[in-house]
């Protein structure tokens, strides 16, 4: 066991950090304030390969491991949670399922432009009545000749209106399981501009405000039969597999937010003086900081472990990383919420002011406990593995 980053990983981290500081941080306040999708940053990230980090080179990607990808999301999220989730949703939720379940033709058609960053990806599973419980899904897909016809809607979709390629889940029939009729779910790829595919409400969110969260609407949306991703009826497995990987991305986002808040708090308590001395000289501050740093480091180790386990899975598909991913997300998200909340407290009144960015980090942190499986769902995943 070696906790030392390799030279390659260390250099990749310095690249992401440098990029985040120079290109992402200066726009973070504005992106949050205006809710404007940072298209120029995304284009720059595409230019340097940040949108295809774990995708093999033969499909236009960078051919790096999941750890490198996680470090990218982490460093971006240190300065801007919005930018972190744009990369995470694109990579984990759209590139990954096409890479894992797509045919060679589908990979050439969609994965290559996604990995090169020429196209942006999104993932549509959640519906008004079906989040964590996929059996509540209402969106239907009916095969009509050589086309699937989609009807229904998806909500809270990250990269919503900005994406070009969407992995969409829909009910494609019914199957009997253990004497009960269950919905059969399949996965599809839908391209922007397909007739019958439109956008509904743009969500006005608490945090990650620049990430373009939209409702997707399908009204007699006809897509070619070949847009079925994986086997018919295997959609639930595809979604669960995808979310296992997605959780590493969100865990990395949460970790980055916690680290960003911690870094700023350390700087602040050294400067801020009360009662004649820096507040960092008070033992209470020191103890709290020690706890924040320790928990953040623990989260980092869990995130990196989950990413490395996914790397092992890519070499040997018998290896599962579900539990590690769930633990990483559960821990990192809760640490992010705790650390950012304390960071606001240590910034006092200034922490409540937008200009200081700490309150944004707290708002951004909250979603990491909710999306891609709430903390409660992570606990279900972990405990079901324990009690198996």
């Amino acid at each position, binding site marked *: 066991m070696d906790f030392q980053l*390799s*030279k*390659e990983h260390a*250099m*990749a981290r310095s*690249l992401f950090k*440098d*990029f985040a500081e*120079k290109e992402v941080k200066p726009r973070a306040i504005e992106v949050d304030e205006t809710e404007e999708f940072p298209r120029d940053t995304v284009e720059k990230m595409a230019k*340097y*390969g*940040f949108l295809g*980090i774990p995708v093999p*080179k033969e499909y236009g*990607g*960078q*051919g*790096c491991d999941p750890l*490198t990808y996680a470090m*990218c999301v982490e460093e971006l999220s240190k300065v801007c949670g919005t930018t972190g989730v744009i990369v995470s949703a694109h990579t984990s939720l759209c590139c990954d399922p096409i890479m894992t379940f797509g045919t060679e033709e589908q990979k050439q058609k969609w994965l290559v432009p996604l990995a090169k960053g020429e196209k942006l990806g999104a993932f549509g599973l959640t519906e008004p009545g079906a989040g964590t419980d996929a059996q509540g899904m209402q969106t239907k897909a009916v095969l009509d000749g050589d086309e699937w016809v989609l009807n229904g809607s998806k909500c809270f979709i990250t990269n919503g209106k900005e994406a070009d390629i969407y992995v969409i889940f829909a009910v494609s029939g019914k199957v009997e399981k253990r004497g009960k009729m269950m919905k059969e779910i399949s996965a599809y790829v839908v391209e922007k501009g397909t007739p019958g595919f439109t956008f509904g409400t743009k969500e006005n969110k608490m945090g990650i405000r620049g990430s373009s969260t939209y409702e997707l609407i399908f009204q007699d949306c006809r897509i070619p039969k070949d847009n079925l991703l994986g086997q018919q009826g295997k959609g639930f497995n595809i979604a669960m597999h995808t979310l296992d990987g997605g959780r590493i991305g969100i865990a990395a986002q949460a970790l980055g937010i916690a680290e960003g808040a911690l870094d700023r708090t350390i700087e602040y308590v050294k400067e801020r003086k009360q009662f004649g001395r820096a507040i960092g000289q008070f033992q209470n501050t020191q103890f709290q900081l020690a706890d924040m740093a320790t928990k953040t480091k623990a989260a980092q180790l869990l995130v990196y472990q989950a990413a490395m386990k996914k790397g092992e899975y890519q070499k040997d598909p018998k290896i599962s990383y579900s539990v590690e991913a769930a633990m990483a997300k559960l821990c990192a998200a809760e640490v992010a919420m705790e650390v950012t909340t304390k960071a606001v407290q240590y910034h006092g009144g200034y922490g409540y002011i937008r200009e200081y960015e700490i309150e944004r980090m707290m708002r951004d942190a909250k979603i990491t406990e909710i999306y891609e499986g709430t903390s409660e769902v992570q606990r279900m995943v972990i405990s079901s593995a324990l009690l198996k």
Partner: protein
Amino acid sequence: MKIVVCVKQVPDTKGGVKFKPDGTLDRGAMLAIMNPDDKAGLEAALKIKNENPGTEVTVVTMGLPKADDVLREALAMGADKAILVTDRVLGGADTWATSQTLAGAIRNLDYDLVITGRQAIDGDTAQVGPQISERLDLPLISYAEDIKIDGDYVIVKRQFEDRYHMLKVKMPCLITALAELGEGMYMTPGGIFDAYSDSADVTVWGRADLKDVSDDNLGLKGSPTQIAKASDRVAKGAGEKVTPDSPKEAVDYIVGKLAEKHVI
């Protein structure tokens, strides 16, 4: 076309400057980066490569074995080949011996263009580039802030004190690059892993590989410059802090001080 870019690993002053007890820089204790002007020169070369397919960019550095890091960074940004010139006998070189060493290495290579940074942030001499051009008998264009290729010629915008010069020079020639030439190019993640893979084209040369250079011109022995003394900058006093009650009082205080010191 073939471009050779000279790069230097320098201490990152952002991480704080550290000295050895004898007053020389403690390079081992400081974070190291690619010298910014050299990075701009490399970016210019890579831009030429992008615009002129088939162009080959080779980076050369002289330094300690750990200078390998800047070569890997250059490869990760898109350079094709890297050469590290390292040898104990080359240590302690001043600009004279450094340019002799780099010229001795470049004589082994085919090139149309040699690009160096204007100067390094550690020594700030701006001598090595021009000296290399002398040793290789190449026309020199210094202080370049824009480079364009036009057939066998380069068109360079050279910064001058109150104006700039547009120069058209036949290749081969040597250009020293200003930081302004760079646009802030980054490595790619995949490029980093390739740069550290077995297939990365990194060659290590020692003294024996240098062409047409005499031992008298190399390393500490071949360096006419001798450092008599090095010291840290003397720290200034804490200054005076005043807390006037009104802007008028503040202005009166400042004006009074300026008058007291005969500034006004």
